[in-house]
């Protein structure tokens, strides 16, 4: 067997490389850096239909990620979905009359929430509710509507 010193060096190298690999997996492969919202504040929004929105989905403004969805619940009185989201503390000046809509990235991509700024001088703060919302586009409803409209056009086959 080799002497103690070089053995310890090899084991040290091995452990360091292993931890480095874990670090690379967490930061480079995984989303440890982007997932966490730093000292954020929480706002809510009610939607008629959230479609395929999932917890941890992005909340964006002008395409830039400003937070993430932390919970999707159901309001028993209004029969609406309640989406709670954490907005990063860096984005403190979002007008309180901003509107939230559920959008899809690409044709088959994940759904996310897009915020459109309003004109108010008052800004969103912890516990606020975004009032103007636009639901997710449900493809089946859209197709149904197109077929319905075509059937009602004058001159269509009865």
């Amino acid at each position, binding site marked *: 067997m080799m002497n103690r010193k070089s053995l310890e060096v*090899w*084991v040290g190298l*091995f452990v360091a490389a292993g931890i480095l690999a874990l670090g690379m*997996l967490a930061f*480079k492969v*995984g*989303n440890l850096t*982007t997932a966490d919202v730093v000292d954020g504040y929480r706002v809510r929004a009610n939607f008629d239909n959230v479609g395929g929105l999932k917890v941890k989905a992005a909340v964006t403004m002008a395409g830039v990620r400003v937070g993430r969805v932390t919970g999707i619940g159901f309001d028993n009185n209004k029969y609406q979905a309640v989406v709670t989201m954490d907005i990063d503390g860096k984005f403190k000046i979002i007008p309180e009359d901003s509107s939230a809509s559920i959008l899809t990235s690409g044709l088959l991509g994940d759904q996310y929430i897009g915020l459109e700024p309003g004109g108010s001088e008052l800004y969103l703060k912890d516990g606020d509710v975004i009032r103007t919302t636009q639901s997710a586009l449900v493809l089946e409803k859209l197709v149904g509507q197109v077929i319905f409209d075509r059937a009602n056009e004058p001159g269509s086959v009865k």
Partner: protein
Amino acid sequence: MSTLRALGSIVINSVERLGRASMFLYEVITGSWELLRRFYLVVQQVYAVGVLTLLIILVSGLFVGMVLGLQGYNTLVKFGSANSLGLLVALSLVRELGPVVTALLFAGRAGSALTAEIGLMKATEQLAGMEMMAVNPVTRVIAPRFLGGVIAMPLLAALFSAIGVLGGHLVGVGLLGVDAGAFWSQMQNGVDYRDDILNGVIKSVVFGVVVSWIAVFEGYDAVPTSEGVASATNRTVVYSSLAVLGLDFILTALTLGDV
């Protein structure tokens, strides 16, 4: 009647063996505390089972990643989503292939060596000799090897996954012309550090415990002859591989079930 009796004896024997193995594991774990004072014994074993297994792990990880890149690209390009190649490679490696293939290689390379070493120590009465000198062979010989395996396995699995992702990058971006930015950004969007990476780490820790446990127990329990050591080594590889594949299904079902 005799087949019935044979069945009964098989069941009784395997339950008895399982019981002995569990008591042995308890003894090893309680014996491990004393090793904190003599940690160099564990370091030696980390070298034997970890550093010496490194080469085969790195080479197989690189090639598994490269094959995943090629194979995944050919499938994804049919759906026009070759940009998701990074996600496919990373998820398959981190969640499944990393821990499982590492554990299988670990059982073949390190587990069999552990069993053969301990079995031979038993056959040449070195373990009995230690006991005569009032040295507990479980804390002196078995526990360091067990702990070495438990420490080395997650690190090896992490290295396997990391080098596999680089191999996928090499083939996907270097050879097949997938956009490097899309490769990494899709990967980072889709791989969650808690759901995917932590799960892979938990899996590899469980596999490390199971493979090391089987290896040291088979060695310690071997019939002290050359044939006995040979069949014990054989059993280590077969049982560890079966245990790893079976446990992998259970762990995946448990963690994917609630998503």
